[in-house]
């Protein structure tokens, strides 16, 4: 089974702090994604990466950056956390393919971040 793990289930930080959210997958997937989930808004893509050291902005990249130094690890960075970044953050990974049968996204359990 594919396993996607996230470093913390719950995290509390203060405004202005630098925050690192880590995601690791064990299936050698090329694609990795960071979403935030907010009530009434669903999941929104922050950044994704299709290879080591490659990244592309999603729909809401402002205030975030990412790092992918190794294939299995994709980090989300909040340079200076703000209260409006309080949210659930979900990481996902997939094998790149033009067909959906092999393009299933596997999700981690999520990190509930609270910024005070």
């Amino acid at each position, binding site marked *: 089974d594919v396993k996607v793990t996230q470093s913390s289930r719950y995290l509390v930080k203060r405004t202005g702090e630098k925050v690192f959210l880590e995601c690791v997958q064990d299936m050698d997937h090329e*694609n990795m*994604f960071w*979403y935030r989930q907010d009530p*009434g*808004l*669903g*999941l*929104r*893509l922050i950044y*994704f990466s*299709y290879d080591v050291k490659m990244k592309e902005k*999603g729909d809401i990249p402002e205030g975030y950056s990412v790092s992918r130094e190794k294939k299995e690890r994709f980090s989300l960075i909040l340079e200076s956390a703000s209260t409006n970044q309080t949210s*659930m953050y*979900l990481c*996902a990974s*997939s094998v*790149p*393919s*033009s067909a*959906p*049968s092999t*393009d*299933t*996204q596997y*999700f*981690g*359990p*999520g990190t509930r971040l609270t910024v005070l």
Partner: protein
Amino acid sequence: AQTVTQSQPEMSVQEAETVTLSCTYDTSESDYYLFWYKQPPSRQMILVIRQEAYKQQNATENRFSVNFQKAAKSFSLKISDSQLGDAAMYFCAYRSRLRTGKLIFGQGTTLQVKP
């Protein structure tokens, strides 16, 4: 830009009954994929079912089936013989054939299953 809309924030169903969750989407593309994901209270999101837009036949996975109406841009999920374990938040998602991997999600529908 593509959008996905789930107009039912919450739904409830009696155990063993059938429930249908609605999803509409907007796109100018003709070739794309649609998905339903399930997020149980433990929060690990899993894929329930997928549909390729070029296929007219509706996808089915055991008790889960879809009603795909391409002209109406509608993609509903039917859950038959509902079980307590079906209680979760369900997300409808769209993926362009041209943009590998990127999913656009709806707002989600929370399904309650009553014993």
